[in-house]
């Protein structure tokens, strides 16, 4: 069985795209439709990698990323942000949350702005899992 990769995105088209790329490259995809569900799966399945959207219902990728990176049991799981939100805004949001009294978190291991080409996503995954 290939390494487990969790895709957290509320857009079914994007989930289908990511899952197809993952399966074609021999990984085992897991899926979540929002940040809340994503966190539950991260905790229960301990995936090898998370591909994370930012703007979602219930809990955004901004908060889920912080949950992962501030939990000693999860923080080593690499995260690829795959979003329409720019990297600059994402990093500013993390800075703002740290200034409001949150813990400092590292930058995500990779950041891809939607839309991406299949090979672009595959390369980012490969770079983090091999």
């Amino acid at each position: 069985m290939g390494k487990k990769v969790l895709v957290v995105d509320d857009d079914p088209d994007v989930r289908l795209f990511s899952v197809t790329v993952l399966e074609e490259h021999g990984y085992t995809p897991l899926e979540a439709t929002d940040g809340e569900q994503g966190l539950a799966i991260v905790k229960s399945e301990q995936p090898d990698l998370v591909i994370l959207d930012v703007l979602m219902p219930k809990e955004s990728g901004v908060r889920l990323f912080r949950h992962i990176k501030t939990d000693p049991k999860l923080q080593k799981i690499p995260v690829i942000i795959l979003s329409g939100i720019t990297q600059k805004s994402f990093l500013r949001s993390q800075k703002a949350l740290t200034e409001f009294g949150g813990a400092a978190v590292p930058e995500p291991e990779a950041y891809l702005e939607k839309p991406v080409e299949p090979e672009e996503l595959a390369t980012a995954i490969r770079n983090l899992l091999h």
Partner: protein
Amino acid sequence: MNIKKLLFVTKFDDLSFDALQSLLVLRKASLNHVVFVNVIEREKVSMHRGLGYQKIEEIRLRETANIRFIDWAETLFEQGMEVGVYIVVGNMVRQVFDAARKEEADLIVVGRSRKRFIDQLYSGSDVTEVLRQASIPVLVYKPMPDKIEVLDRPFERILLATDWSPASLRAEAYLRPLNGIVEQVHVVHVAQEKDLKGDNSMTVQKVRKAAREKLEEICDRFAGVGIDARAHVYVGDPIKEIERAAKDCQATLIVLGSSAKQEWVERFLGSVPQNIAEKSDYPTLIVPPPKPS
């Protein structure tokens, strides 16, 4: 009650980002999460003879909304806010309540643009249903009279209409924790003309005085939490007089409590809160009855 999570329901022409920005003052009252909701009406993408289901149109409408929300969300994320989004096809009222339930929102904000009367007849019905069915407070946002732009500070000068009912008390209780945001509350009671019938002027004055004293008690409770409050008694039709009072006080927002009347009564007769929310020129916040246990 703290307002932590706000559901911002928009069709973009009725409620834009400047309206939301004016509500960010609620961060002082613990607001930290905004959820955008855009409902694509089913008839815009539904089956048409010879065309089938208009998937391409649905994608276009979804992505148009998504592009706007991404832009708005970036601004909010950068301020340390949490942001969520729902872009859904279906019945507006059902989808709004569905999102409110999933998100456990504390406040629903809907817009009502300044439209021609005939347009209001149609667009008003969704707002009416949201007001009728809501179990959490609903803010009906509107451009201010004689202005195209929205207010900078909608919670600055509030007109609280009261009849001392449990619904009115709930509206009052909802506002008190907003000290630091609300600068002034004008507490207004509209006496009905039939209440003022007496055989001499003293009898009539007694009614006014009694109302005034009860209003002063409310003002004292606001003063106790640092909110300046003024009492006013008006006489006549509640809907017209509340509107008149809002104008006199230069109110930025009208706040009313709504009661749990039997649905058929409201459907046929309407209620003062609903009528104000739908017809008034002023933004209106309706605090609903508590959920049945």
